[in-house]
């Protein structure tokens, strides 16, 4: 897919995120906006997804013979919900139910409500990489050649389980896995450098045995180039880690360069100001 098309979809997804968070006056817009470009690329271009004869995506829990994505930093749920709906897993009208009573779009994603596209509960941080590794090993046991993707936050790197998984994947040669760290430099209590410094993530993952790459997570072209490079490295004995620099709140000027919008919803005026910066490309839900 051309990067211009991806950017058009991303603009709509960003509108969805803002409207969803505004609609229930809760949720996490900052990280959702920051990771939009990656998820749109994955679901609309990079990932090989199961479809029916008409080309419509179909969901089954096992996900054999298709690429799988695991969102470990589950608080950016508005993003995954919007991307799944826009990709055709469930009706976009359902986005209006986000975080409201009886919804399948729970505050953090869960398969408990049988929402198409969600395979694991996440949001209790540090667990997604382990699950993704297990799914990748299941693919190997099944002789399934497809790829597993996983996104984590940089604040999430504080969790000990991440490093258990980081040690395990190279040891077991899980080389059908591409993981990402959203390096936006922010977490709830402030900049990661102040809260709990990650120091040199690239050196750390390299020392653990990962094939580490870097990219600009808000540049559609760089995302596509880096993912192509990463795919060429699959099956060579090492898991792949892409550290991607993003801006929290990317796409909305007053939400960028601060951790203020990590878990805060815009009010009516702020929503209007934000939407004015994002073209409605596919029609609001």
């Amino acid at each position, binding site marked *: 897919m051309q990067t211009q098309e991806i950017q058009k979809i991303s603009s709509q997804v960003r509108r969805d995120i803002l409207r969803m968070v505004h609609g229930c006056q809760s949720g996490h817009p900052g990280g959702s906006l920051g990771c939009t470009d990656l998820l749109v690329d994955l679901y609309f271009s990079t990932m090989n997804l199961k479809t029916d004869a008409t080309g419509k995506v179909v969901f089954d829990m096992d996900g054999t013979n298709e690429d799988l994505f695991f969102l470990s930093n589950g608080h950016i749920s508005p993003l995954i919900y919007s991307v799944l709906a826009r990709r055709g897993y469930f009706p976009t009208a359902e986005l209006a139910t986000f975080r409201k009573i009886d919804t399948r779009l729970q505050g953090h994603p869960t398969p408990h409500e049988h929402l198409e596209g969600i395979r694991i*509960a996440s949001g*209790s941080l540090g*667990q997604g990489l*382990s699950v993704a590794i*297990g799914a990748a090993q*299941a693919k190997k*046991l099944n002789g399934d050649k497809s790829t597993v993707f996983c996104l984590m936050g940089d604040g999430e790197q504080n969790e000990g389980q991440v490093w258990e*998984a980081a040690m395990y994947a190279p040891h077991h040669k899980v080389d059908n896995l591409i993981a990402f760290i959203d390096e936006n430099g922010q977490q709830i209590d402030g900049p990661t450098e102040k809260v709990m410094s990650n120091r040199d993530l690239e050196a750390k993952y390299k020392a653990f045995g990962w094939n580490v790459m870097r990219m600009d997570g808000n540049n559609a072209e760089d995302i596509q180039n880096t993912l192509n490079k990463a795919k060429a490295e699959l099956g060579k004995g090492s898991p792949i880690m892409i550290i991607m620099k993003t801006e929290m709140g990317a796409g909305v000027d007053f939400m960028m360069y601060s951790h203020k919008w990590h878990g805060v919803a815009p009010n009516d005026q702020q929503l209007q100001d934000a939407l004015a910066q994002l073209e409605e490309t596919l029609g609001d839900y």
Partner: protein
Amino acid sequence: MALFTYETKKDTRSGFGAGMEYLSQHNPKVVALCADLIGSMKLEGFIKNSSERFFQTGIAEANMIGISAGLTLGGFIPFATTFANFGTGRVYDQIRQSVAYSGKNVKICCSHAGLTLGEDGATHQILEDIGLMKMLPGMVVINPCDYNQTKAATIAIADYEGPVYLRFGRPVVPVFTPEDQKFEIGKALHLVEGTDVTILATGHLVWEAIQAAEALLDKGIKAEVINIHTIKPLDVQAILTSVKKTGCVVTAEEHQYNGGLGDSVAQYLAMNHPTPMEFVGVNDSFGESGKPAELMEKYGLNAEAIVAKAIKVMARK
């Protein structure tokens, strides 16, 4: 008089190992994970037959639970194995989020539960694991009583779709249940018929309950002994039928009062058929180092303790 006899004593964890060896040959979907305790978990047989379906995680239990959840995608049935303390309490949130709430078909199989691991002491003697696991919605909790029953339970849970906690232990205990038994999840087993007091026991305490019933019989008291190998779902019908007949009940388990079998039974009876009840278990304390039999005596978890509680509860009828 002897109500039950046995020829050998074996550890329940070896029953688990035998069940896993059976599964390695009969169920190609079963995979096993272990956090650096292959020998203690008796997994050598499984690994010998199916090394490609075994995953060594190192001493990293949280990661092991997550990997297990991921392995279910693609149709595998992961058996995640370690000691009970590290397989439940240490990783409660991983089990809660990635297994139970996510509805994943993971079997958490843990040895060295309770006081009977002995000399290692309280750091390893978890007495809260039944409670932790039974609180999770949808989690099945099983604590079989001897080698044969543990083997049968291990084989049976592979055929059940959903998360299971299987708890067993280290010491050798009498093997008195049939070798060829079919294990039915949630189906309590009547071992001794009686009319004066119901004894509901689980795990290692089942044999002690039989010994208690023999001692009570010598005093002219007819105790009914039921093996509650499945704590969740609880066989409430079997319990209700028995206590309606006997009018009083003692529960016996190698676990805290809080959160254990006794508290499940008490909750059910309080709502449906209030009945005088006594508990054999650990009463809000940690364990300590010692020989298993010494610990069971010190903490009141043996046949003598069950006899005393039975006499006490009968007086409350």
